[in-house]
């Protein structure tokens, strides 16, 4: 068997597989690609990739029909096959679309197996559009709670936010292309740090040191700048990145991983200016790992990607005694509840007021997913 890749990109479920399939063509060859789904049709999108069909007995090769329980049962049934593809891989980047059956149900199980065989698992999870209905939203919310505890880093991509990046009259394909561009740019930038040839390189252990604590909120931002002052433009774009402005995003983190990629004109000063700008926005007081890379294809473009995490608040011993085991399902529910209170602010605890099916006590800018200008 050939040597396992240093980074394995995994697409899980229908949405995850299509995103990965669309990205695969533009990825550096050092990155391995694997597709996992219950539905065999997903695999036709990318012939030649490593594929794992899960839940053959449960679903007979069809989808899960949106049943999350069926999704997790399918993944558990094929534990051995899943563990095999993750063995020896230091970094696993998983892309899953939450809301459906396979994505919501299997994500946490698959991430768990990957982490158990020793990989650092970073998951990009896309949340359904809010007009896809309450059931999918709820299923996605539940899935993020469990998933956050299983993987080292969880980046939640709100489709609503991405939608807002494109013009209102843009065709459907363009909206999805925009979503791909964000996730794809993020992956390429991240992967670039670990494949050979970086000026300032990082190793998988460095990533692990940032994402040491499963279950802590993860921050991810990505920005591109061109022309005069490209580095600062990129840093500013990263500060205003919609991925870092989701309803549940963290704004300041303790540890940061900053990766700067530029064309041959990238100077050391410019790179570190960008890092400094990113640090003022996102924190990174405890540690900041910097990576830089020159890619001649980029010309005068500079890309900045930021990954960060905070240590979770230390649990008080009294609470731990009461039996708050790791993986206790009540934990994510609690976090979800506080997030809900954050959204409603002073109205937290009062009965919700609904107009047109929306809780209008939640600020308009959150419900409409409008990106706010960054703080100075």
């Amino acid at each position, binding site marked *: 068997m050939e040597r396992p890749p240093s980074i394995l990109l995994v697409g899980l479920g229908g949405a995850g597989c299509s995103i990965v399939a669309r990205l695969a063509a533009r990825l550096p060859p050092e990155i391995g690609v694997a597709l996992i789904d219950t539905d065999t049709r997903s695999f036709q999108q990318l012939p030649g990739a490593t594929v794992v069909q899960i839940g053959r007995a449960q679903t007979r090769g069809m989808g899960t029909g949106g049943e999350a329980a069926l999704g997790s049962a399918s993944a558990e049934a094929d534990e051995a096959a899943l563990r095999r593809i993750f063995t020896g891989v230091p970094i696993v980047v998983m892309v899953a679309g939450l809301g459906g059956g396979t994505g919501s149900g299997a994500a946490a199980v698959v991430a768990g197996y990957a982490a158990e065989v020793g990989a650092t698992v970073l998951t990009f999870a896309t949340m359904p559009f809010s007009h896809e209905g309450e059931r999918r939203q709820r299923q996605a919310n539940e899935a993020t709670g469990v998933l956050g505890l299983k993987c080292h880093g969880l980046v939640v991509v709100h489709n609503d936010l991405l939608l807002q990046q494109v013009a209102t009259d843009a065709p459907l394909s363009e909206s999805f292309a925009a979503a791909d561009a964000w996730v794809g740019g993020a992956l390429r930038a991240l992967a670039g740090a670990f494949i050979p040839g970086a000026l300032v390189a990082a190793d998988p252990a460095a990533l692990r040191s940032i994402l040491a604590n499963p279950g802590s909120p993860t921050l991810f931002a990505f920005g591109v700048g061109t022309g005069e002052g490209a580095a600062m433009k990129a840093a500013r774009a990263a500060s205003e990145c919609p991925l870092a402005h989701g309803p549940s995003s963290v*704004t300041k983190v303790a540890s940061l991983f900053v990766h700067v990629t530029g064309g041959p004109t990238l100077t050391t000063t410019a790179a570190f200016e960008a890092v400094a700008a990113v640090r003022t926005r996102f924190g990174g007081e405890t540690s900041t790992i910097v990576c830089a890379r020159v890619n001649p294809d980029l010309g005068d473009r500079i890309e900045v990607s930021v990954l960060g995490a905070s240590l979770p608040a230390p649990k008080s011993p009294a609470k731990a005694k009461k039996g708050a085991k790791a993986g206790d399902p009540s934990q994510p529910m609690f976090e979800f509840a506080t997030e809900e209170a954050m*959204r409603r602010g*002073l109205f937290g605890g009062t009965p919700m007021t609904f*107009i047109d099916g929306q809780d209008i*006590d939640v600020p*308009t800018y959150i419900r409409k997913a409008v990106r*706010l200008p960054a*703080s100075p």
Partner: protein
Amino acid sequence: MTPKLLPSLIAVIDIGTHKTVSLVGQMINGKARMLGFSERRTDGVVKGTVIDLERLHRCVHEVVNDVERSSGRSIEQVYLSLSGPAAEGERIKGIHAIPAHDGKVTAKDVTDAIASAKRLEPPAGRATLLYMRQPTTIDGRAVANPVGMAGKRLEVHFWRVTMEEGNMRMRVGMVNGMSIKVRDFILASHAAACATASDSDKQGVLVVDMGAGTTDWILYYKEHILCAGSIPVGGEHMTNDLSVALRISRETAEDLKIRFGSALHREADANQTIWKDGDRGLGDQQFNRGTITQVLSLRYQETFEYVKKDIMQHLEQLFPGHAVKLDQYFLPAGIILTGGSANLADAAEAVHAIMQLPTRIGVPTFENDSLRKPEYAGVVGLMTAAITDSPPPVRRQRGFLASLKDLFRF
């Protein structure tokens, strides 16, 4: 209708989400003179709904004490304002076939038609608070006074405001507990209109009273109330949005809203950096003004879109099949904004952009300078409405309210 003899001393209390205001006045030579005024921060009300009666009671009591002290008179009866989702309006009509052989309407025909309208029971658990007379029609033609006119079919229309029974008992009981009678309830949006809109305005005008907890609107057409409604969003929501967006306290958010807020978001705002305290000392914080205006303008504009939608739904109910447009032919006087949130910068411009109607900020006409602000339109209007009391004709089911009052009177 014979004008009622009013007691010369008139006291009104306006209990809002943010503040409770009381005004005591007297009619002297046909003009209202202010004798006492008091204002306090309301306690125990969230989003226009009472959540802690005891705290609200204490607050109202203090306001009444203040106003009695400053006026030097003891208050025996008050007018209360009624706003928010507690009050709900609907249009009802009474139909009467004119029996006389010559087809002329008599006074008794009118009384019968009114009686038939009032026989319609309010929805379960709700009590009728007031009836507002709307144009009477004979064979579908609107007439000012039908008596003596010829026709076959007489219809009287009312705008009936109902209120949750429990909620009303609570309010009446609270005021009765201070040995004060509730003389009447007046619709807050109607009061705001009385203080800011002239009779000629009322040929066609929309008055929007945006308070802290609710946004109440009322539409006048040909001097009559056509319909009224309420959206449970107010200035408090804007403060809350800001405190969530900037992660700051309620007080700071309120302060920033007043100093830097706007109902319009301009591109240039994003380049403007503002300081929280302005002294650039310890603990002072920098914010982007664009963030503030973006958050506030989104909420403000959304609220008015809800108002517009609500009005259109009401109009659709009133004139099914007719696509009534909110334009200047229908509402020549445009829109009048009152309430505390009318103070937000660029409020009129923002509303004009959404509703496409001339918009102005309603400042109550009153002898006292200190009350000539949009946030006092409600309380000044209560006074005005209490003095005039009738136009547009207000006919209440006296029996019911009177018996209710007796119930709470020891």
